[in-house]
């Protein structure tokens, strides 16, 4: 498998649906792998036509979650690391940003209602508020705190050419909610092939705790691991953190159908390494490490 590091520049606000509290829709503060997979697959199909839908679904599936980076200069952008998730004293962090601080600086909300077309008044019970991640810091507009989104993608050898034709600098993809109304534009800013040296897994791939085939990579000395990917829950694995129920939906109908669902250990949680073989038996699919079956 060949790995690429993708860096997207955020051009528009993005809303990644998370929890819904009454009329308020919260956003996630990272881009889950399956969301990025969906956006890439959708854009890919829009450039070649939807007739190849089943084959295209496989193309981008070995993809990590995407995490933000606040600074990314053009020259040394490829060396930039994103803000990886972690927990500290029970609070969720992205890099050194506690979730609250990140939201304070980069997240805003809009309140909106639907309009009754005949009366041109607001429609009853349609008030809603949703959060979105801004492309730049709202605290200090003079500083150049532009958000970038960084992640890895692995391609099987037989699809590399096809993928390279599509993934070009300045490619625009549209991610998350309300993409029809000025939300969600990301622009491919940097694309680096991560070359292996002497047959070893590239260092950058190891940094994401992955080996060349997209399985979990563990250093010999490690006795714990902070998760950058969701990890399929099982009783064989000890961890500290949170468990989340993740479901992938087929959104082609009004009541989305669950395609698959399961419990996963949340990103940022700490896995206690007991049996390396059990852990290494997990492979990356759309931001989730899933046990080989």
């Amino acid at each position, binding site marked *: 498998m060949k790995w690429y590091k993708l860096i997207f520049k955020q051009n528009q606000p993005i809303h990644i649906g998370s929890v819904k509290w009454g009329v308020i829709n919260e956003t996630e503060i990272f881009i889950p792998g399956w969301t990025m997979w969906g956006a890439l697959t959708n854009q890919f199909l829009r450039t070649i036509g939807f007739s190849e839908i089943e084959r295209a679904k496989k193309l981008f599936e070995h993809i990590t979650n995407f995490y933000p980076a606040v600074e990314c200069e053009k020259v040394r952008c490829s060396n930039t690391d994103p803000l990886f998730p972690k927990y500290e004293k029970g609070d969720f962090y992205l890099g050194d940003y506690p979730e609250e601080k990140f939201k304070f600086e980069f997240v*805003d909300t809009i309140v909106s209602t*639907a309009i009754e077309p005949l009366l041109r008044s607001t429609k009853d019970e349609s008030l809603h508020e949703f959060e979105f991640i801004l492309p730049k810091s709202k605290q200090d507009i003079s500083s150049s705190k532009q958000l970038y989104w960084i992640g890895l993608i692995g391609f099987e050898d037989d699809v590399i050419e096809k993928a390279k034709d599509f993934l070009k600098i300045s490619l625009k993809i549209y991610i998350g909610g309300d993409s029809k109304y000025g939300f969600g534009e990301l622009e491919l800013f940097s694309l680096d092939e991560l070359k292996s040296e002497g047959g070893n897994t590239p260092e950058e791939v190891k940094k994401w705790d992955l080996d060349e085939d997209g399985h979990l990579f563990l250093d010999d000395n490690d006795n714990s691991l902070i998760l950058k990917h969701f990890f399929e829950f099982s009783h064989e694995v000890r961890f500290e953190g949170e468990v989340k129920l993740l479901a992938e939906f087929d959104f082609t109908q009004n009541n989305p159908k669950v395609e698959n669902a399961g419990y996963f250990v949340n990103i940022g949680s700490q896995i206690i390494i007991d049996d390396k073989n059990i852990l290494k038996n997990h492979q990356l699919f759309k931001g989730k490490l899933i046990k080989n079956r």
Partner: protein
Amino acid sequence: MDKSNDFVKEFKIYGMATDPIYIGTGGYTTGRVDNTIVRDPITKLPKIPGSSLAGTWRYYATLELLSKIKDKQPKFSDIKNLNGNTLNDKIKEWIKQNSSNWPNNRWEYFNGNVVAKITCAGQDNTPQEELSNSPDATNKEGKTGHCGHCIVCKGFGFSKKDLSWQGMIFFSDLNILFFPVFTRFGTKWITTKEMLKNANLYGEEPENEQDENKDLVCIILEKIEDGKVDGHINLGWIYLPYKVGNLSINLKEIKIGNFELTEDKIVIVPESLFSQIVNSNLEVRTSVSIDPITGAAKEGALFTSEAIPRGTIFYGDLRIFDRSVFDGLSDKVGDLPNYSMLKNALCDSKHFFETLGIGGMTTRGFGRIVLEINDKNTNNCDKDTQGKSEESNNNPNGGGQK
């Protein structure tokens, strides 16, 4: 990526407010203003959100469509009784039998428009209905919802029990591009280099951008004062130095209705001051409710509202996907309009923005705006040049899902 150009067309939208425009935030109060307008959270600049533009345009497209075809549409029961496995087949059968009544290949005669209704605008009232029942299905209050077949539903999207269709037209926010400010030399329109660059109206990298930002100097394009190359100008209450700069800006593109912006009316201000100048020159009105019995002001009913002033020029973009991209997606979607039909639908209905307007308080002298849609090759909504290259197939419903 070249192939993608066949499937999506990008258009620019320019707009000029002919009334103050009020798009409220719905309840926030800041400073001295009670009824505040929507702003960009980073720059604090007022804007017209893409969702407001899309929602209003959907309504106007429906109005325009129905005004053109309302005498020609059959009763839904007539279609239901025809032969055919699906509603799409029945609609086609009806058109076949009534081809004189459903005459040509214009956007208003797109197949599915046979079952279009005014409730195709606005939010759907019957989202839990099957697509095949949706044109005449009603909710508890007896209201119909999106029909799921007409050009409005296909273009702007719909969601039914068995199918969600995102739509084929994508809107962006309309952001301020030129903002009118009163000065001692008359009204001038302010903008910034960054905004001109974003709108592709100005491509050259300025040589001493840093210095200008630091020194807070405005640039004007023509001499305005006794042949002087520099001086001072007031932009509202802010008094700033200016100098005459030799920049080429492509203003030809911005012809909105009969209004043309000329170089002598433009002041380019430093990026860091733009938001300040705009926000201190918004239209702010103080109003009071009147007690109908006494005819005097009502106690406790004084309120202030703000709006984007008339004369403001906006810029945004629009992406329209062609039906050919969706080939093979799902048989259920049925026929789809191509982009020249969708563009014509937008072009033919945009005149409602000039009368009914956008945003709130449209019955009180707010909201009217003139919009222009431009693309690279054909200017505005000029029908003579449009469609020839895009529409090789004379049948408007010929593509779609086979």
